[in-house]
């Protein structure tokens, strides 16, 4: 102890008090004095003492009583009894009550200092033991907290976690791992990992880690296929080592990458589809330029005709790229929709007026026949224009000579309906489910000459979906098709 020990002397005899002080002060202790038990107790309450010398025979509170009451305040204080009645009984009684030792009167300064030094040493030992005990308690608490914290953290991870020891037993795992790997028998402690883990590839990799002598061995990353449920998992496996680098087991972290794999496939399919769709018009353009450049054209008029054909394909290529950009923007959610009150009857009416000349050229009768007045809906005007432009333009393109297009309206409790009825070539039942797919175009002899990107209905559907509506189609080959758009409105 670096600071001097605090010692209190409680004795009603002034000679003893002063004598003790003189002797002990010389030894370097801090000394306080009290002339009776009451004052002594008060001192103990005010200050922390290491050792107290107590006279057994005092007026007021007696020595034995005082010992008891001091220990109620601090049980670790060393109490040394000073007694004039140096009998075995009083000494035994005092020790029973918790005194450390006793000093019979009269005593020599040497006897006092030796006893006090021993008592102080005892006090230090007691304090040290107490500190160690608290420390250990604290550590155990921390450890328990750490363990439960670790379990909570691992438990709420969406990635699967699995720890195996050197005896090839599962020692730690979470719910995600149970679900992804279909772990079974985890409630039977001590079973080998082969028992719980059905995936052979994973067990083999874990065995490789557990059997590895190589200290620099760090990690295995592995894709794993599971059958039930059918999924693709990414497993990272690494050895767990102690501070000396000795192998303790292996940890596995598993992530479900099924969705990512699917997206990857769809993406690469889409890219190859787009590449093909871009290649066709480009090849045609190059072909036309090729025949012109080779001087195959007989005269200026033919050359001009061929260049115009190339220009048409270039136009359709441009339209395709435009549509692709549009779809890409929609899918990336980059289009900020500006929702405002839109009167669909007016909007569709304007589009009908715009397409009238085109319809006349194709000898198709285009009419607006709103069956019921429609309430305004909340929608993006640009989107609505694009949606109905695509549908009306399709109805003209896929119509027949002297055919007609009628646009009607309907209304129910939640949705307004716009129906575009044509008398065109229709769609075969087999093709119906596919018409909203990217690049799908109905191909028949009659549709062969019709140009289109194959993305018009894809865009239409995306617009309707983004407005929480739905689009339906009814069709009969050679009789015509009706496209119905339903959009929600607020009453």
């Amino acid at each position, binding site marked *: 102890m670096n600071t001097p020990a605090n010692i209190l002397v409680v004795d009603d005899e002034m000679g003893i008090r002063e004598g003790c002080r003189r002797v002990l002060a010389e030894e370097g202790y801090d000394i306080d004095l009290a002339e009776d038990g009451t004052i002594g107790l008060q001192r103990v309450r005010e200050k922390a003492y290491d050792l107290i010398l107590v006279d057994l025979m005092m007026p007021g509170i007696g020595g034995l009583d005082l010992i008891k009451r001091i220990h109620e305040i601090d049980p670790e204080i060393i109490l040394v009894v000073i007694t004039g009645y140096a009998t075995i009984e009083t000494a035994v009684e005092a020790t029973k009550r918790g005194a450390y030792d006793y000093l019979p009167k009269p005593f020599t300064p040497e006897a006092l200092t030796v006893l006090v030094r021993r008592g102080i040493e005892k006090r230090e030992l007691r304090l040290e033991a107490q500190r160690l005990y608290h420390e250990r308690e604290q550590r155990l608490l921390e450890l328990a907290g750490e363990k439960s914290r670790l379990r909570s953290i691992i438990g709420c991870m969406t990635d699967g976690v699995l720890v195996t020891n050197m005896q090839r037993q599962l020692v730690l795992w979470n719910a995600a791992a149970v679900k992804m790997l279909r772990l079974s028998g985890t409630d039977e402690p001590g079973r080998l990992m082969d028992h719980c883990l059905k995936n052979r590839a994973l067990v083999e990799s874990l065995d490789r880690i557990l059997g590895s002598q190589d200290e620099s061995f760090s990690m295995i990353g592995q894709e794993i296929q599971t059958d039930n449920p059918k999924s693709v998992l990414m497993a990272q496996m690494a050895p767990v080592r102690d501070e000396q680098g000795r192998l303790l087991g292996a940890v596995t972290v598993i992530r479900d990458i099924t969705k990512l794999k699917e997206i990857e496939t769809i993406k690469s399919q889409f890219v190859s589809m787009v*590449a*093909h769709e871009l290649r066709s018009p480009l*090849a*045609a353009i190059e072909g036309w330029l090729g025949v012109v450049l080779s001087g*195959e054209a*007989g005269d200026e008029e*033919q050359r001009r005709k061929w260049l115009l054909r190339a220009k048409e394909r270039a136009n359709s290529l441009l339209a395709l790229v435009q549509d692709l950009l549009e779809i890409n923007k929609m899918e990336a959610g980059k289009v900020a929709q500006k929702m405002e009150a839109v009167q669909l009857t007016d909007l569709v009416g304007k589009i009908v007026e715009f397409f009238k000349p085109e319809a006349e050229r194709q000898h198709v009768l285009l009419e607006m026949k709103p069956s019921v007045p429609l309430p305004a809906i909340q929608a993006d005007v640009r989107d609505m224009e694009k949606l109905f432009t695509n549908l009306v333009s399709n109805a003209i393109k896929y119509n027949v000579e002297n055919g007609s297009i009628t646009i009607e309206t309907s209304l129910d409790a939640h949705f307004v309906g716009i129906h575009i009825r044509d008398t065109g070539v229709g769609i075969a039942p087999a093709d119906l489910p596919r018409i909203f797919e990217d690049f799908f175009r109905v191909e028949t002899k009659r549709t062969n000459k019709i140009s289109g990107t194959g993305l018009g209905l894809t865009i239409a559907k995306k617009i309707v979906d983004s407005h929480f509506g739905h689009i339906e189609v009814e069709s009969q080959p050679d009789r015509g098709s009706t496209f119905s758009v339903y959009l929600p409105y607020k009453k």
Partner: protein
Amino acid sequence: MKASGKILLVDDDPDFLEMHKAVLQNHGYDVLTATSGQEGLERVRAEIPALIILDLMMEKHDAGFSFSKTVKTDPLFRKIPILMVTSVAEATGFRFSLEDDGYWMKTDDFLDKPVMPEVLLERVDKLLRKRE
């Protein structure tokens, strides 16, 4: 001396049909056209062309294959050379070569679209001469 005979073009792209037709007619060939495999087969049966130029990707993705298979397994027509013209190779990840695929594709030659006039004429001439 130009090899004689009618050439049947089968292609669902009207641009290529017209383009190839113009080039071949410019160089003195008789040209027949068809826009589908079905129509093409009808033409083959009715006119027995000297050469068929076929686009692989028609209304169905395997229409070109089944067309050439039908022609090449028919004793009446199997001597008619078929020149396969395709833009399918990269898009589908196929890579054709006569060595690997010639047997079951049952065509005599193939070219990637677009075909430049000189190349088309040279191949057509070669196939027709070989036949004679």
